[in-house]
């Protein structure tokens, strides 16, 4: 079990998807069939979350290195290995994935149109996402990375809203175009190092590491650029963000949740997992640029979010802003900033996920996302409103909600970083104001005031299914806000550590001083 838990984690949902496909029901068949579909997908989603929790509890706290590592030959001709392992960072993201997918499944039990396909795609998506977070072989990673696109493309395209085709294609091509150069980069790395293994490349003295060290700095910079572009598009960082509002808005609710909750994190994860150990010097050199666009993203996303007339779009743009915070943390190269951005990633998944669910619930009731179509519904939907407010404040990083912990750590980390950190921190802190502005303004316009539209007067408050989705999220919002310690501990267990040398100088916390050994060599 211990040995194969990651393999199980990765492939269990896929098995579930296959099981769903094989269910002996007609596609046209109504209730009985959909019940079976629901049951099967729920069973697998729950089992996946259970497995993730088992892995979480099983990770040995003191040990260094990747846990539950499994290595096997996959494509021996090309020296591609099935190499999986987790550290704190990946495990957190796996857990988040399993959790949000379960909620998405629960929420989507109401989907009637092509329900079986829907669940199949959700489960396949889950498999791919978990795979992304577990893979330690670059090819394996890339395979999962691209695989994620397909089910999401279908989710947006089939069950999306009016402009779904546009959004789905834009999403796919944008991210594909971003990552295809990474493929070139991966192969180039292989050609130079003779290995696809991240661990090999970062193990001192291994032939792969020597190969990496022998790559000239110019080439490394280009390599880094290829990787960074893929991840930037995914995060997304300014100016590669425009796929995001379209995709989020057009996706069905569960799709938006997973898109925001997990998919965006893949970009962050890529930066931390791959760019940081492989190209530390290049990444440090690019830090001023990335810090600047992260901060610009924070402010820009918030400003654009503020005036969106469409609720979902507003939340989508707020994601741009929040992911700016996350990237600010990554590029601060400080322990605090890094941990903060990991925490913030999780938090963003939880609170933006919650917001998307809530917007989805409103959409289900009124079939519109226009803010102007609402107004005064707080009186009609007290519970939904309260939870919306909670999510909004979490998004605005109110202390004792999850949003604060991450944002504070990121700001502190940014402040402590080299590269005139205080300046970036100061500008980033403006996001505090702006996030409060757009969230509260949204809340005011949609929920406060008198009930202006007849249709709003008779809406019904949350049902059991919706509570089942929202209450866990709300609990997490408060839990992470009040007791983030377990997550912080996990977030510190990032395996940058494969890098040797003076990893982090105790005084400044700065990780930029990891002089990678190759710099020293002539």
């Amino acid at each position, binding site marked *: 079990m211990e040995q194969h838990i990651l393999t199980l984690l990765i492939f269990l949902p896929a098995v579930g998807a296959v099981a769903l496909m094989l269910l002996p029901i007609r596609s046209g068949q109504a209730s009985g069939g959909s019940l079976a579909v629901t049951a099967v997908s729920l069973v697998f989603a729950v089992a996946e979350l259970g497995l993730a929790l088992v892995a979480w509890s099983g990770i040995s706290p003191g040990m260094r290195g990747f846990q539950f590592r499994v290595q096997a030959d996959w494509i021996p001709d090309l020296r591609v290995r099935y190499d999986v392992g987790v550290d704190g960072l990946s495990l957190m993201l796996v857990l988040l994935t399993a959790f949000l997918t379960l909620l998405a499944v629960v929420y989507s039990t109401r989907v009637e149109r092509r329900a079986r396909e829907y669940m199949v795609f959700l489960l396949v998506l889950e498999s791919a996402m978990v795979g992304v977070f577990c893979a330690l072989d670059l090819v394996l990673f890339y395979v999962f990375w691209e695989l994620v696109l397909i089910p999401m493309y279908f989710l947006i395209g089939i069950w999306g809203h009016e402009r779904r085709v546009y959004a789905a294609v*834009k999403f796919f091509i*944008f991210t594909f175009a971003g990552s295809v150069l990474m493929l070139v980069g991966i192969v180039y790395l292989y050609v130079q190092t003779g290995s696809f293994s991240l661990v090999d490349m970062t193990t001192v003295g291994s032939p792969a590491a020597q190969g990496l060290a022998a790559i000239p700095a110019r080439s490394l910079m280009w390599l880094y650029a290829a990787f960074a572009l893929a991840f930037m598009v995914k995060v997304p960082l300014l*100016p590669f*963000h*425009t*796929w995001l509002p379209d995709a989020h808005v057009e996706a069905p609710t569960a799709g938006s949740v997973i898109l925001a909750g997990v998919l965006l994190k893949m970009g962050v994860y890529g930066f931390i997992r791959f760019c940081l150990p492989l190209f530390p010097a290049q990444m440090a050199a690019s830090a001023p640029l990335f810090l600047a666009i992260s901060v610009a993203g924070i402010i*820009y996303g918030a*400003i*654009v979010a*503020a*005036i*969106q007339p469409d609720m979902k779009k507003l939340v989508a743009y707020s994601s741009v802003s929040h992911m700016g915070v996350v990237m600010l943390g990554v590029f601060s190269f*400080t*322990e*605090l900033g890094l*941990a903060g951005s990991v925490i913030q990633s999780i938090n963003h998944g939880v609170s933006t996920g919650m917001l998307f669910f809530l917007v989805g619930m409103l959409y289900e009731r009124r079939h519109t996302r226009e803010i102007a179509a609402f*107004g*005064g519904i*707080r*009186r009609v939907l007290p519970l939904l409103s309260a939870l919306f407010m909670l999510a909004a*404040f979490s998004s605005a990083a*109110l*202390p*004792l909600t999850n949003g*604060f*912990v991450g944002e*504070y*750590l990121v*700001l*502190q980390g940014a*402040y*402590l970083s080299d590269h005139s950190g*205080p300046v970036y*921190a*100061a500008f980033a*802190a*403006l996001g*505090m*104001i702006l996030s*409060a*502005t757009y969230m*509260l*303004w949204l*809340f*005011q316009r949609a*929920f*406060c*005031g*008198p009930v202006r539209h007849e249709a709003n007067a008779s809406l019904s408050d949350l049902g059991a299914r919706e509570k089942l989705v929202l209450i866990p999220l709300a609990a997490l919002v408060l839990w992470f806000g*009040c*007791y*983030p*310690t377990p997550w*912080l501990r996990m*977030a*510190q267990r990032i395996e940058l550590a494969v890098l040797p040398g003076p990893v982090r100088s105790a*005084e400044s*916390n700065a990780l930029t001083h990891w002089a990678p050994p190759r710099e020293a060599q002539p």
Partner: protein
Amino acid sequence: MSEIPIAPLVWAIPGLPLIGFVLNMLWGGRIVRLFGDARGRGIVGGLATLTVFGAFAVSVVALSQLLGLDPEHRRALASLIPFAERVPWIVIGSVSVHFSALIDPLSVLMCLIVTGVGGLIHLYATGYMADDRDYPRFFAYFNLFIFAMLVLCLGESLLLMFVGWEGVGLCSYLLISFWYDDEGNARAGNKAFIVNRIGDVGFMLGMLTVLAAFGTLSFRTEAGTGVLDLAAQGRTAAGPLTVGLASLICGLLFVGACGKSAQFPLHVWLPDAMAGPTPVSALIHAATMVTAGVVMVSRMSVLFVQAPTVLLVVAAIGLFTALFAATIALTQTDIKKVLAYSTVSQLGFMFLGCGAAAFGAAMFHVTTHAFFKALLFLGAGSVIHGLSGEQDMRRMGGLRRHMKVTYWTMLIGWAAISGFPGLAGYWSKDAILGLSSGMVPAGMVFYLVGTFTAFLTGFYMTRLMAKTFWSESRTDRHGHDPHESPPSMLIPLIVLAILSVVGGWLGTPWANAFERFLEPSLPEVVVAEGHGGIPHGLGLVIGALVAIAAMATGVLAYRRAPGCELLSDAAKRSNPLYRGANALWGVDGAATAVFVRGGGRVAELISTWIDRRLIDGLVNAVAVVTGFASEIARGVQTGYVRFYVKTMLAGVLAILAYALLSAGAR
């Protein structure tokens, strides 16, 4: 650091209100339904009030135990939750924050004020809000506020203080927009929160700088490595504390204080905050929350005294705000607005005190102001209650006959805030003014302008009294007659009135028990008496004269004034001073124009032009151009064989030409 026996129970100070919040939030509505309306509301309100008084009781015990210690040892750490050491909040790298309280005179004083005055206002609110349909929600929020305020006061580190800081902001937002069915209220709540957030950014940045400089966020630690411990020794974690660093930190923190304590130019939210129910105005926007800035500055006073420039700025902003708000208060017609601007003005006085390094005096004013301003607001609430919601003073008048208790208690409040000799406001305000006169530079300017503002205070308060209680009645007669409020509202009035009289006796210049009590929390910088300033005795006399003069002028002026208006409508229109003050000196208008409308326009432009048209436009342009190129290029596929042959031939020719010619060149 000392041990005090009550330490294991300190969690109850914020904890009890928190419990009240949770109970009322989750089950308040159910209780009301279960026990019937009247009894249910009694239980809900009672529960809320009792938790606050319970916290008050614990605070009193803490005070007594603290007083039992030597003054220099009056400092203790206590945990706010069980197993605080085991269950930290944020511990990573150099950030280590636990849910712990710092018990020292400053925090205990604030606990007493918050729970004491807060308890009274809770009691008052059980009457004032009795008929509100969201009764449980109100008390839940109210309790939550008390909790947050106590965390702010008690927190042992800046980050925990920030929790309370934002928490009170949240409660302020919730309570201002409590009656959210009116979108104006919601908007006012937003304004409060957002403007506060501007200040919070300052606080946050200050905090970031503190951690960077001191390596910790704790105020005091057992090992003496807290921020204040180090700052008191003039050093940081790594080296000496420079004036520049201290100024940076203090400047940033002061921005935070400006936001929370409504100092110019961040004062704009406070008058709007009056949209909330009156107990909210009394508790949050007069007595407690708005003084948080002063508390914070006092808490960090060890640092502030090492940043003289910042102190000067603090004083200047305080003084300007005091004068500025006082002039506006002269023209307001909404009774709560008058009191709101009065609050802004009084907060200005407090910061003047802080700026003069007279933190003790500032805190003293915080205390007395809590008494009399709460009293005034509650009185005003009583009036509003009595008039079924009327807030416009132009439609009041002659209420002294109908609302005797309210009238008399308000009268005491009036005297206290105006600085009538012997009452609470007199002592605290004069302490501040006296000490400010010794400031370097320009101490006398501060003193004179401050004294003039004190005169204005007396005058606008007299105007309020005259318009509300004394003049002939201008109430609409179609409603009910004005009626006196229920006892639950009057008892707090009476208690606060008493406090407004006696509260100042703790801090007379002769026997300043108050300042001596606070001393362990404040830096050991004493502004030498008379050093460049005016002597104490003279100050007291001048203060008394100014107060009496202001009150007398007001009384005389308004006794004669027809319809209780000093200026005719025409004069109001033509007088630039009146118009300026009545227009809030244009600050709100400008802020709205720039930040709300201008910001909205800019956001619109960015969204449309940069985001949609430029960035997304480029993305789509790539797609469109590609598609277009494809459409154009497919035209090459003419379908004619001869054309295809020619294309092939051209290819052959080009390839051969290139290869042969380049080979020839080689």
